[in-house]
């Protein structure tokens, strides 16, 4: 295996967009080191090669470029956007960030402090509080169990030396670089030569821990609304059922015609915000149904949500609903490929996960062959065992907990769930 480099030639307006994707997401955070890879990603923007932290920022900003370095659960992504005339100066910088980052104590400590403050500020948001607990229920304290920013107590303890150590794994053959914009031959050659020298191993791949024996978590907060998140641990993006679950998620949660929106908002007027997310990942992906509603109607909203869940397990989708979901997915595909940055990001993430670069286009053909029975079978296999995380006033939490335990008893074990 060698690093993948793709140039997407179609571009507009003299703009280059590039994505360098590395298999070092927060899933790679070590036990007790939650937040390490996000800290690493942020620190990469604080000096490399001949440029110290200040000079690095000035260089990019003087050229009017846009540069981000972030981790998601699965991947570390460096993202660049610039006018094409600056690409010969800025593209090699992406490689330098990975090859020769400075990661000086003082700069890593600054980034660490900023991340700690961001984590603290996230505690103001009831959605973030509920989501934090939901991750723990679904994945425990290990892989996928925390926000990429980490956990306060663990992030505090990370030493800059550990960041420098983790950085050594970054320049690897599993890297994927996708550039949207006119291909300039010397630049192409330079990128190719540099990346082909990277090392073979990306490090030990992460593994998931077992799902929690608990299926309920409540976080008390003195808010007007209660946030409810119903979660399921489902399949990796490579699994045959992934697209069937994607169709179900679109049916339930995408757009104003979606089932949850129509039922909870338009019919019952219970919520403003309601949706369903399926973040397809390298390992078992979380499928989350969420809403927020005034504390006094939280139980009614839970009942409505559980009725939708029962419906999904009991009967196949009507053909018209399935066709609507397919149409919405096709629309998302078309509308989500407008800018060079969007195309580069999609292609890079797919290739990095071992999928074909045109996975999304091919998926549009595959969804035509997925039947309502396929969707029902996927739901019955993967949505049997929900967990519930709620955030809100104490009275609403205890009412929610007792209703939840009537409907979904907590004695389920990890073995029974799989």
């Amino acid at each position, binding site marked *: 295996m060698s690093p993948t480099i793709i140039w997407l030639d179609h571009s507009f*307006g*003299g703009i280059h967009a590039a994505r360098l994707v590395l298999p070092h997401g927060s899933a790679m955070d070590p036990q007790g080191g939650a937040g390490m890879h996000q800290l690493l990603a942020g620190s990469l923007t604080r000096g490399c090669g001949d440029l110290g932290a200040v000079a690095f920022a000035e260089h990019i*900003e003087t050229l009017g470029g846009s540069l981000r370095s972030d981790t998601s659960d699965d991947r570390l992504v460096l993202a660049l956007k610039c006018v094409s005339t600056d690409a010969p100066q800025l593209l090699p910088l992406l490689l330098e960030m990975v090859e020769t980052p400075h990661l000086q104590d003082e700069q890593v400590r600054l980034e660490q402090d900023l991340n700690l403050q961001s984590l603290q500020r996230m505690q103001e948001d009831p959605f973030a509080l509920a989501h934090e607990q939901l991750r723990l229920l679904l994945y425990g304290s290990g892989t996928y169990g925390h926000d990429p920013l980490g956990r306060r107590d663990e992030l505090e303890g990370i030493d800059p030396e550990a960041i420098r150590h983790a950085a050594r794994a970054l320049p690897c053959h599993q890297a994927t670089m996708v550039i949207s914009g006119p291909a300039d031959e010397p630049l192409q050659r330079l990128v190719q030569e540099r990346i082909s020298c990277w090392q073979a191993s990306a490090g030990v791949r992460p593994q998931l821990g077992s799902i929690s024996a608990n299926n309920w978590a409540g976080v008390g907060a003195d808010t007007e609304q209660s946030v409810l998140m119903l979660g399921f641990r489902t399949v990796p993006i490579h699994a045959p059922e992934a697209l069937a679950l994607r169709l179900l998620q679109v049916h339930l949660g995408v757009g104003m015609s979606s089932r949850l929106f*129509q039922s909870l908002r338009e019919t019952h007027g219970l919520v*403003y915000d309601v949706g369903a997310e399926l973040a397809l990942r390298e390992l078992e992906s979380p499928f989350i149904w969420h809403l*927020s509603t005034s504390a006094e109607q939280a139980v009614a909203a839970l009942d409505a949500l559980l009725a939708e869940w029962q419906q999904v397990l009991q009967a196949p989708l009507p053909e018209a609903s399935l066709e609507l979901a397919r149409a919405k997915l096709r629309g998302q595909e078309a509308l989500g490929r407008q800018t060079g940055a969007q195309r580069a990001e999609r292609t890079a993430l797919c290739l990095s996960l071992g999928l074909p670069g045109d996975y999304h286009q091919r998926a549009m053909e595959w969804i035509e062959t997925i039947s309502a029975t396929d969707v029902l079978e996927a739901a019955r296999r993967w949505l049997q065992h929900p967990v519930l995380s709620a955030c809100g006033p104490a009275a609403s939490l205890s009412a929610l907990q007792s209703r939840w335990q009537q409907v979904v008893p907590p004695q389920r074990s990890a073995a029974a769930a799989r």
Partner: protein
Amino acid sequence: MPTDSLADLRPCLGYPAPQQRTLDNGCPVTLLPLAEASVACLQFWCQAGSWREQSGEAGIAHFLEHMVFKGSDGLPAGAFDHRVEAVGGQSNAATGFDDVHYHVLLPPEGLSLALELLPRLVLTPGLQEQDFQLERQVVLEELAQSEDQPEEVAFQQLLALGCGQHPYGRPILGTREDLQGMTPAAMGAFQSRHYRADRCAVAIGGRFDPEVVLHQLQSGPVGELPATTTAEAASAGLAVAPGRHRVHLPRLESARLLMLWAAPPAKAQQQLSGLDLWTTALAEGRSSRLVKRLREELQLVESIDLELHPLEDGSLMVLEAVCEPSQLEAVAQEVETLLQQAAAGMSQAELARARRLLEHGHRFSLEAIGPLTQMLGQTSLSRRLQSFDEPLQRLASWNSDSLKPLAAALDPSLACILEVLPL
């Protein structure tokens, strides 16, 4: 038949010149046909933002935007969403202080459907009693959700303290009291007062045939819109009351320093372009003065932002710094010192950097059809439609000397300052 206007619009930055047309009733329609585009976008804009609300109407502009999606004659609730999404489209709407807009982004084949449905939905809303009661609950939930975010609460308090009785000081979502008292009849009256041909604009970008869409618009509800008969009462304009305030909020984790200044109205584009250069030089990127000093060197803040919001009755500039509660005093002092130093002007290097960041930000924003059409819709509504490179020319016209006096607009003694701390 729709007529062409004489606006001087030129092709630039990779795009043809936008076509400005006017329907028989005076409603402007701006078209940007792009044969290569893979999508089409339809936007309907109207000057019925929360600014237009009168006593007892706080929140009616936004509530109406919700009610529009509950359907109209022959188009039951949900039918619009279903039909647009069934062709792979997405629709949404947003209400601001000055205006409200509705947009549909979809594959080009669906545009004719969107042109048939969106004007009916927006201009002939059903406003049925039962839907009204139900949707009011949804709007109240939206209000509750926003009130559960301490940052939102702090920002609303800043606007209320700074803008006083001006409508910009009121939340766009409205107040519980006014929302509870609203009736479909009052909403209907608000609708017909403001949704008028001369206070609306349509913009379409992407792949389509201009003559076909113009005909469809002219022969539908947009073409039938009456023009305004009564002039809007003149506003005294926005003033920001200087002062220093402090508030303690529950569930706040990090302290905030908020500062609010008045700036010239949106039509003063040249002045605002200069202020854009100032806010960028001061707070955009790690090399900017405030970020460099407060975040990178002194490590006093988690983040610091300074934004200019162009508004028709007087623009607003807002500074937000996020820090540990124990650092708030030090942050406030350092910010004031740096803002006072701005009066001495900015260097050539700072100007070059700020200009480039803004120029490239503008070029990047033109890449997708949605934001592009949005720019056309908003500038058509305010009668400031212009070539795509016009903002770049304004930025280029400034130099260090001409920018220097503008810094006075950010003098801390003119600001409404709110210090926000945990309980």
